[in-house]
């Protein structure tokens, strides 16, 4: 079989006449170009074009229906004096940092639990993924009801338990709103951490735990000296993905609070949307969302460098 394949290829290669198309396809440079083309078109159409367009918009004074002229960095300098923008920056950092830490801690804890042997393990693992599978807008609406001052099931429970006496206005109270939004983000993000870290845990040879147990390490020492260092590369990649997503989060906040009350939950993405689409100031909206870029870049570069270091060691 293999031999006859080789023979027929050779016969084919030595055939005196070949079509022009065949000749082109046999040239690897051409073939590579042809194979890459669909991807290039898709990426260009849906990522590169909007990005370039966004950059262009941010240096003009375009509004809806008005093409706009080049104004240099005026939109960006204006942002520095925009108090709401500064609040959004602060919120985004708090939101990302707190949510990431909580997601990592809870996700890791869950992954460690799921990595044990117990009855119904497969079912539980699938169940844990639910928050991740349900469309964000759908589950966020459910949360909105749970946070509703009048109908809140959370308030009801706390009230019945005698922990609170009045109503908690989860989303309406400016000092609580960001916390509430973070809670939902954590709820939604934990499964991704749990499942990814579980996959990482399963690559660690269980004999290492046994060796460490015999060596005299207590459970938390086994975690700290063996599991954690070996899980670190996976953890770093998971955190990297999650930070990028959380930093640019939109749907969740948009559905829950729309950035309010009084911009208490305003993030980069919601503020950009509010200015660009809500108010119609396209150029300034573009400038807000582009302002995210350097921050994200720094975060990503720092993390990638760290991942490299971890992997080298």
């Amino acid at each position, binding site marked *: 079989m293999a031999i006859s394949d080789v023979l027929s290829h050779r016969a084919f290669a030595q055939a005196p006449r070949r079509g022009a198309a065949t000749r082109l396809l046999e040239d690897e440079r051409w073939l590579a170009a042809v194979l890459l083309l669909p991807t290039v078109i898709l990426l260009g159409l849906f990522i590169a074009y909007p990005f370039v367009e966004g950059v262009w918009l941010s240096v003009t004074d375009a509004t809806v229906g008005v093409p706009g002229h080049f104004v240099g960095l005026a939109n960006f300098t204006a942002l520095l004096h925009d108090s709401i923008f500064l609040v959004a920056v602060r919120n985004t950092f708090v939101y990302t940092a707190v949510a990431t830490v909580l997601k990592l801690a809870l996700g890791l804890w869950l992954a460690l639990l799921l990595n044990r042997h117990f009855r119904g393990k497969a079912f539980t693992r699938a169940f844990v993924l639910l928050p991740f599978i349900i469309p964000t807008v759908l589950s966020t609406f459910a949360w909105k009801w749970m946070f509703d001052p009048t109908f809140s099931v959370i308030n009801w429970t706390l009230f019945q338990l005698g922990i609170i006496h009045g109503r908690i206005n989860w989303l309406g109270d400016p000092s609580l709103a960001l916390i509430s939004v973070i809670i939902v983000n954590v709820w939604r993000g934990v499964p991704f951490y749990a499942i990814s870290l579980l996959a990482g845990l399963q690559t660690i*040879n269980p*004999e*290492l735990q*046994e*060796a*460490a*147990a*015999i*060596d*005299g*390490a*207590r459970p938390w*020492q086994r975690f700290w*000296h*063996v599991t954690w*260092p*070996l899980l670190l590369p996976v953890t770093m990649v998971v955190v990297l993905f999650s930070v990028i997503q959380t930093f640019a989060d939109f749907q969740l906040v948009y559905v829950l609070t729309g950035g309010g009350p009084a911009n208490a939950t305003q993030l980069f993405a919601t503020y950009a949307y509010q200015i660009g689409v809500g108010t119609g100031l396209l150029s300034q909206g573009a400038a807000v969302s582009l302002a995210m870029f350097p921050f994200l870049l720094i975060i990503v570069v720092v993390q990638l460098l760290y991942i490299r270091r971890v992997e080298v*060691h």
Partner: protein
Amino acid sequence: MARVILRNLNKFYDDVHAVKSVNLEIRDKEFVVLVGPSGCGKTTTLRMLAGLESISSGQVLIGDTVVNDLAPMDRDIAMVFQNYALYPHMSVYDNMAFGLKMRKVDRNDIRKRVQEAADILGIQDYLARKPRQLSGGQRQRVALGRAIVRHPQVFLFDEPLSNLDAKLRVQMRVELKKLHNRLNTTAVYVTHDQVEAMTLGDRVVVMRGGVVQQVGEPLELYNAPVNRFVAGFIGSPAMNFAPARLRDGAGKLHADASGFGLQLPADIAARLRPYTGREVIVGVRPEDLQVANGSYPPGLCFDAMVEVVERLGAEVLLDLQVGQHTMVASVEPGVAARRGDKLRFALKPERLHFFDASSEAAI
């Protein structure tokens, strides 16, 4: 230093009865090898001893303490795993030092003990390397080093040499033996390789299907196996077996098998007398089959046809057709046998083994 006692030890995995009422007394400083075919429960027994596997019933004693409810770290044992189980992110030094650090041994003491172990094992030059930068044999040494720096009461080994190539395995086997002679610590060693068992063990425990078949010194197992399984398992090439019927002929006891018949000397006949008229299994080791030189009594000789000749240098293995059986004979290199030759073989009656046909117990 301590003795180890297994008392009526059982292990159930749901409905799998993996270890069945194992009783064993391992003396202080003794090197005991558990050997048996795959799945016979060696690893499970060892892991119950280590505390890595729960004990379904029975007792494990280390020293004079029942350790059933003690965590592995409190049993004062060290274990060497088949796949080494070295911590991949730690240097060789840290791998060896880990157990001591966990036990809060003084820093200078740790350095001294690691250095000492490294010197014994010849791995001084690799202390800064990571396990993945070592060859299989070097990793094995590190794994040994990690065990010996701890100065435990008992060493446990689970097939530590099975990942090494044949030559290195023989070399490490010798080193393990030397190491034990030097450290004089009680050791329990699991292997499925009977040569390893025979060469390393002060005593050998043969297991099958979760049951201990025989416990004894290597030569005891070789010379006086208690049943057909042990007889076939110990020794390489394996013992030849042939069913034979015992018959009383003119006051002498005869064993008739396909292709050969034996006239048994009086002492053996006395032992086998109750089996007269019944079938037994005759066992003969390849090295006990020798080419007859004429002076042998004819009642202890038989003819066989040579089918395959394997010249190993120090010995020659002949695959023989004897009646309906094939047998293997290990003869001197000087024997000039060729395929198709008909040779006359002689049996030494005192080297024959007889087994009950149904219980397979030695008679």
